[in-house]
């Protein structure tokens, strides 16, 4: 579904990604793991069009999406749950979900999609008129995921869904990801919480200083000597 070949990107003269290649097949849940500053967020932003790639190819179903502005990429079927959730804090929960369904193709299915998101996350329905800024961390993550699902995406990008949340809530968020996975979505997830994320993905890539260092199935990576020593601390 998604393929990146030799992608380099950055901000101005600063380069964050050096020739990154990766693949996500339909129905898969893929992780990109790595330390802070490895270029994980830049990678997500290149895919969703917020950051332009200097070089390389990004293809969705074989069609290049390099240079396509972010608002058009949503219409092609990619939804991005940004780092730190980035809800519109003064808008109500329901307005946040409504704006997630902004693209014309999603507007037509708004009522049904909203009912489905509320069924998936009943807490959101209880708090539907509340400003999104007043939700707890876990609820905010639900709202951010729900907002992304409102565009009826085929590929869901999740950037550090567990960042800045209390340990118990982190557990909840990984349960949410399992539910999204079970719904049959294709998911690309970026995480620093390596041990946890390897429990929910099929495959993962290890990104270090802007380049892919390792890749494999989650079982392979869990048993990989280097990852165990450097990231899991065993």
């Amino acid at each position, binding site marked *: 579904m998604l393929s990146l070949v030799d992608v380099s990107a950055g901000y101005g003269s600063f380069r964050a990604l050096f020739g990154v290649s990766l693949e996500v097949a339909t129905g898969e849940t893929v992780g990109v793991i790595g330390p802070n500053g490895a270029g994980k967020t830049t990678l997500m932003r290149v895919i*969703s*069009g*917020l950051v332009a790639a200097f070089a390389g190819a990004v293809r969705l179903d074989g069609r290049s999406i390099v240079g396509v*502005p*972010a*608002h058009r990429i*949503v*219409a092609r079927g990619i*939804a*991005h749950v*940004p780092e730190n959730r*980035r809800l*519109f*804090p*003064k*808008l109500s929960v329901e*307005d946040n979900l*409504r*704006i*997630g*369904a*902004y*693209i014309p193709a*999603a*507007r037509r299915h708004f009522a049904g999609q909203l009912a489905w998101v509320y069924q998936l996350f009943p807490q959101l329905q209880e708090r539907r008129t509340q400003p999104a800024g007043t939700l707890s961390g876990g609820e905010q993550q639900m709202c951010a995921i729900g*907002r992304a699902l409102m*565009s009826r995406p085929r590929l869901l990008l999740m950037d550090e869904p567990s960042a800045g949340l209390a340990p118990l809530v982190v557990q909840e968020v990984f349960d949410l990801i399992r539910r999204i996975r079970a719904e049959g979505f294709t998911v690309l997830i970026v995480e620093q919480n390596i041990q946890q994320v390897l429990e929910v993905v099929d495959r993962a890539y290890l990104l270090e200083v802007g380049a892919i260092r390792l890749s494999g199935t989650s079982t392979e990576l869990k048993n990989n000597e280097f990852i165990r020593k450097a990231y899991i601390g065993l």
Partner: protein
Amino acid sequence: MDLFLLEAAINGLLLAGVLALLTLGLNLIFGVIDVVWIAYADLVMCGMYAVYWLFAVFGWPLPLAFVASVVGVAVLGVFVHLLIIAPILGSAPINQLLATGGLLYFLQSFATLIFTTDFRNIGVRLPVLEIGGVYISYSRLLAFGVALAGATALYFFLRRTYVGTAIRAIAQDREIIGLMGVDQRRIYLVTSAIGGALAGLGACLLALQYDVHPFVGNTFGPLIFMICVLGGLGNMIGGFIAAFIISQIIAIGGYYFSTELAYVLAFILFILLMFIRPQGIVGR
């Protein structure tokens, strides 16, 4: 109760409607695009000239001239954004102030050049209504009703539509709005058109009551800015409330003293409030 005082208070209330409408337009543009259109009152002047020429000179029916003024100033608003604001969106706020300030002088000079400094009136005299000894002009009543209807329409547009929701969201997070499928440039154009349309609507309502001349914007422009700041710049509800407070001060002050002194009182109150509540009366 003093009937003249009551009449002054009612007139103040009716004046507040139009001021509130114009304040909404200015606040909408500031809240969404983060730019202050210094020349906003001069867009109103352009709309008043449009009504004058189409109705009084070319003989169009008045409602048609009104519609043309609203549409025309909306288009003007789009051009203001495309030609003046969009190229300098990323630059320092002072540059944007200077650029829209320059537009103010341009519009005033341009109007002087083609229309001269004559005061012109569309010459429509609507009847005056008498209720229990209190006289209220129909044109003011109409202006108040239309202004409230315009504000209500804007409210529902912002609350109930996707574009309206995007307009409310965009100032809260400009960076990720694209991830929602929202084209930021398009939202800015729609906002500028709405801001222009509100100025055009205000122009229609003012043309019923006042003469138009190239500097008519100077008579209420500073007032609108003061109301915006008093209500908290960008805060639409605050601006709406402030419009009613300021109009009452001017109307009732004008009754007890003189209109000139009433304006002085309003501005003194404004300065005092800026010391006490610099974030505006409804600001956080």
